[in-house]
């Protein structure tokens, strides 16, 4: 590739990145201005820049205590799942992989279902019971797949197979918990599994974003290795990448990202599958760009889903897990149909 062509490509990619960030900011603004209170944008802004001038204290409460945590959580969850999906597709060399392929979210759902079913409560922090046990269950699923991979070799095939087995195991256990529940409890479990932004608060936002930032720090140096891995195990090996070690490391990060995202707000599907595909179509395989762009795309999709879930029925919030696919699928179809690079 000539240096001019390379520079042109880099500019092209940078353009998409700027577009992505702009879209994200725009969707955040719309999300913050959407809600049954029908506040005008000026009032919403005033709560940030001149809260002392607000005449109605309710406006401040609505924007800062109700809307803002939900918007922030949508960003964190979308970014985490977007990145996790891209990483998963890379280490497994499989375009159908997502954070859910290996059963982490099914395990999280099982942990939540059991907690709700038996009314388990943590001492001192009862409100963290469900996220805590969801996280524990997701980590158990991770350890299971990790263990099998350690024993039988860290190849994509072994991981996908043991992961799918884990997925089925936890799905069955989850069904068992639902089967044992009384209607009231069952409804609560089902509601958790739908995924809902109503559970967002500043604590969940800070835990989720800390996990995300930690993951970014851990993987920053590995971007080029991941790009190399896309060329196949053999080529990556010949470039000096310790493929096994990389796979395990990324695997651990993905499980952390997924568990952090779903433990608080419930299983939110699809973002982890769609966001990386959209990102890959727009900016290509270079993981220095692909990973951030997957995160941005995931965040935009989540915030868009949040807006739509509020617009469908302003008074009740339609669970966001139901809306994400409705937002993501048309977007993905559009890209598939218009993508010039498509073979």
């Amino acid at each position: 590739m000539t240096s001019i062509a390379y520079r042109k490509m880099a500019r092209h990619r940078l353009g998409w990145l700027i577009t992505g960030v702009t879209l994200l900011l725009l969707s955040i603004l719309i999300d913050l201005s959407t809600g049954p209170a029908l506040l005008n944008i000026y009032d919403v802004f005033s709560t940030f820049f001149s809260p002392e001038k607000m005449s109605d204290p309710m406006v401040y409460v609505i924007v800062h205590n109700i809307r803002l945590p939900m918007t922030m959580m949508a960003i964190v969850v979308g970014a985490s799942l977007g990145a996790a999906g891209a990483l998963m597709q890379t280490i497994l060399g499989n375009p159908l992989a997502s954070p859910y392929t290996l059963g982490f979210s099914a395990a999280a759902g099982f942990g939540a279902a059991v907690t709700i079913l038996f009314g388990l409560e943590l001492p001192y922090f009862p409100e963290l019971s469900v996220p805590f046990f969801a996280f524990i269950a997701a980590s158990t699923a991770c350890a299971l797949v990790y263990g099998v991979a350690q024993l039988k070799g860290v190849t994509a095939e072994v991981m996908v197979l043991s992961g799918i087995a884990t997925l089925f195991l936890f799905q069955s256990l989850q069904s068992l918990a639902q089967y044992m529940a009384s209607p009231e409890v069952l409804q609560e479990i089902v509601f958790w599994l739908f995924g809902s932004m109503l559970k967002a608060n500043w604590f969940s936002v800070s835990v989720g974003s800390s996990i995300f930032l930690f993951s970014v720090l851990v993987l920053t140096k590995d971007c080029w290795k991941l790009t190399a891995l896309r060329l196949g195990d053999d080529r990556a090996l010949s470039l000096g990448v310790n493929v096994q070690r990389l796979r395990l490391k990324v695997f651990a990060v993905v499980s952390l990202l997924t568990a952090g995202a779903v433990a608080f707000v419930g299983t939110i599907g699809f973002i982890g599958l769609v966001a990386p595909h959209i990102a890959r179509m727009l900016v290509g395989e270079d993981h220095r760009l692909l990973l951030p762009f997957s995160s941005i795309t995931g965040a935009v999709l989540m915030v868009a889903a949040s807006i739509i879930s509020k617009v469908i029925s302003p008074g009740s919030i339609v669970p966001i897990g139901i809306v994400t696919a409705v937002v993501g699928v048309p977007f993905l179809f559009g890209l598939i149909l218009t993508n010039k690079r498509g073979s």
Partner: protein
Amino acid sequence: MPAQAYGKTITVTDTLNRKIELPAKPERILLGFYFEDFYAIGGANAFDKVVAISKSTWHDWRLSQWNTYIKVNPEIAKLVDVGEVDSGTFSIEKAIASKPDVAILAAWQYNALGDVVTKLEAAGIPVVVADYNAQTVEKHVISTLMIGKILGTEQRAKKLADEYAAAVEDVMHRVMHLGGDKPRVYVELGNKGADEYGNSYREGMWGGVIGLAGGNNIAIGQAGQWSPLNPEYVLTSDPEVIFIAGSYWESRDKAVLMGFGVEPETTQSRLSTFLGRPGWSNLSAVKSQQVHALYHGGARTLYDYAFLQYIGKALYPEAFADIDPEETHRRFYETYLPVSAEGVFMTRLKSSP
């Protein structure tokens, strides 16, 4: 074996408007649900005729109530458990093996069982359907008269049905002629505590009762029959009266606990945490101290008019000045049930801390 083989039979009409023939004096009854209503209609010895129940709908769903009844009638705990319909544990073999002369099922059980009902009937067990869940005067009355006829306590049943119809009629009459805007009402199931918004009800359950009592339920028109409202919507709607439904949820540190054997202080302190929700201190209901708790197990019963009266009185204190809903509730237990209503069933949050 068909019921007619026993000789003398009676015919009852159930809530699905089916005419069912069954032995004139059934001595062995399978009871699927509505245990308290059955007790109220049949009197103190009503359960002597029961041979099988769906235990988890009582034991698991209303534990404190179950414990209260077990104390006065330990035999209930020894009855055959036919399993639960919704979770699929219902055992048709156990049902048939308990040799009931008649099976009394709730409408939701009848619907969920589907084809299984035909098998029960083929085994010679007549199935009749009661329905208090519908929360209509008509079905309450039909269910009550039907159970009365089966138990041979027609007069008592008639009295209960008449009292029920009259009480509901009275509430509707009181609120009908009131002018002005209906007060805005918000109702929430308090099983999750104050940290997370619980389910609100549209037309069904408490939503229906609020409508009857002349309230303007803010949940009406929103998506989902049983789902939480957007907290922001609750704030903007500024409800004038708030009802939190409490029950006896074991091992839940934050849920609003109510029912048999619960101390008033417990209910009060759990309920008061709801005032700490963001923005709630500005709500009209909170400012005017109109935050109430209702026993969730109280809806869909023969005595649910006590709760209807309570809601009516909370909304229109003057129109109900001569009515004491708690006394109505207490007296119903005293008159018709073998246990007394000791615990918290309806209460208003005392002045905010």
